[in-house]
């Protein structure tokens, strides 16, 4: 078999086995909830198969997918940033600033500008992580994480200070004409993901990105600039995650509120989706839908007395199961 096809087949086998295994583990864990294993499985399944769950998942899909597809690109280059969370947040902040405080009216041009400015803000934040690594040798995992917390601080400062509206720590909601519909929001993110996929498959940067991680010496020998590749990846990653934040604001949030230390969580869920999607932007989009659906199920589960954090554990179990089985399967495929 052609090695690429072989990898794909064995990867797919691992994916299916992993998903099945994660269902098994989830049912076992469900036994520890107040519902018992059977009750949990029933509610889980009916919720999973309900159309409402999928529709209500789409608004979450937007920021998760933007984060995941952009992180897939970064991880391909061995650039392990976890900064999508902060980029999504600051993207939303930038979009709000431009629309509400600078432009002051809606319309296609204004909204496009807001989404772009969100992307630029994300790119700035992502570029900072890349620049710190390339210029000063700062570990990107840590710097991106610290920047996430700083983003939380910025949002909390704005909603309790200069942008506060009324008695609560939140901004004024955007007027109705400064928003976009769900279908457009999803479309934007899917198109961006598609763009990233094409970027990897059809441009020379795709090769450069993979070689920086997999064969750095060879890359340098053949004239691939490691530093410049990482900077490009960092900027692009941040740009896409920032767009996710802008679209999230325009479609779902409409206003900014104070945030806890856990952040919004979309950027973190994007990390899981990026790996689950096999570090391919399109795969990451599909995985993001799954993660978003699980996320939207938390309110149903909560109704039955299962803590919403349980969903977080389920997401991790899916990723770990798929990771285990794809690793095993790929190893077998290489023999």
């Amino acid at each position, binding site marked *: 078999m052609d090695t690429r096809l072989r990898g794909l087949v064995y990867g797919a086998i691992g994916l299916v086995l992993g998903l099945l295994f994660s269902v098994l583990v989830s049912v076992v864990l469900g036994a520890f*909830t107040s519902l018992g294993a059977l009750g949990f499985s029933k509610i889980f399944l009916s919720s999973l198969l309900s159309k409402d769950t999928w529709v209500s998942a789409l608004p979450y899909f937007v920021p998760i997918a933007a984060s995941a597809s952009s992180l897939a690109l970064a*991880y391909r280059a061995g650039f*392990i940033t*976890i900064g999508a969370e902060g980029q999504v947040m600051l993207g939303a902040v930038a979009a709000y600033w431009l629309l509400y405080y600078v432009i002051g009216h809606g319309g296609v041009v204004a909204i496009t500008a807001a989404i772009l400015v969100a992307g630029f803000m994300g790119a700035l934040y992502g570029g900072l992580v890349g620049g*710190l*690594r*390339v210029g*000063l*040798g*700062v*570990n990107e*995992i*840590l*710097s991106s*994480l*610290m*920047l996430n*917390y*700083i983003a*939380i*601080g910025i949002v*909390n*400062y704005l909603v*309790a*200070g200069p942008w506060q509206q009324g008695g609560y720590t939140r901004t004024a909601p955007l007027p109705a004409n400064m928003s976009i519909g769900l279908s457009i929001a999803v479309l934007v993110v899917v198109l961006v993901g598609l763009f990233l996929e094409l970027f990897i498959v059809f441009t020379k940067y795709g090769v450069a990105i993979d070689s920086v991680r997999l064969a750095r010496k060879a890359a340098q020998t053949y004239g691939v600039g490691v530093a410049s590749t990482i900077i490009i990846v960092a900027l692009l990653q941040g740009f896409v995650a920032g767009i996710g934040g802008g679209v999230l604001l325009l479609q779902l949030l409409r206003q900014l509120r*104070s945030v*806890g*230390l*856990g952040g919004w969580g979309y950027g*973190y869920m994007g*990390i*899981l989706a990026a*790996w689950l999607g096999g570090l391919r932007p399109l795969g990451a989009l599909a995985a993001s839908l799954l993660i978003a659906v699980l996320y939207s199920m938390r309110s149903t589960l909560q109704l039955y007395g299962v*803590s919403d*954090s*349980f*969903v*977080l*554990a*389920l*997401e*991790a*179990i899916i*990723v*770990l199961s798929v*990771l*285990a089985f794809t*690793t*095993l399967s790929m*190893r077998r495929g290489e023999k």
Partner: protein
Amino acid sequence: MVNIAALLGQALPYATVYALAAQGEMFLERAGLFNLGLEGMIYLSAGVTAIVSLHTGSPVYGLLAGIVSSAILALLYGFFVISLGADQAVTGLSIVFLGIGLGDVIGRATGGAVTPSIGILADDLIIVLALLVLPVIFYLVLFRSWLGYVVRSLGENVVTARALGVPVTLTRIVALMINGTLVGLAGSYLFFTGPLGSRWVSMSLLGWGWMSLGIVILGYWHPVGVVAASYLVGLLYAMRPLLETVGIPSSIADVTPYLVVIIALAVISALYEKMNVRPPTAIWSR
């Protein structure tokens, strides 16, 4: 006037949490593995400590159960990374989610009841252990004994180490157990003496594991450096209320530790590179 002595004392509990978790991670990274799951392990340990000490009425059982839960996550990590050969980053990150998810489900089962706490004596003992005893032990083991050569060789070149007869898997499993134990102790201690004061509040013990990972780098993989960095960050934490009194908004004061750490990382990484001091090769190269 600021009471400096009081402030220096207030930093101790925070520094202890960081020092425990960061030294556990430092030892593991010296052995050539990096466990990004600290955040989840601390959180799970805190949740398990809460429920067990509530139901048994004994904070000691709670503490032990917390340590065991964290060690189980460390073993899970070992199974994935050592047995399956899975990617370390994705395994560690998944453990973060797993630990936070499970820890929160478990912690919430306490219903926010106040649990019995460890006494002042145990509190002081753990502080002394974390900030004085452990760094000395780690220093002696890592840099003054043949065992240290064995461990550090795994962080430098595992192929050569294996060829020279170093029991790679065994050493790494031991390192993982030390990692799980210390991180678990950090989580339990955090639950008892941290901002919650022996009462579970959902999603409020976040950020400690991540910061500990940063402290390993800030201390540049050296026991003394790691403890010094832990104390520094603990001090920054303790200073937050002080910053608010001089007119800095609380939202900004809350993130000062993170801001200072990122600046410190930038300065210190470049400085160490100039001095030709470098991290374990297996862990981090630019």
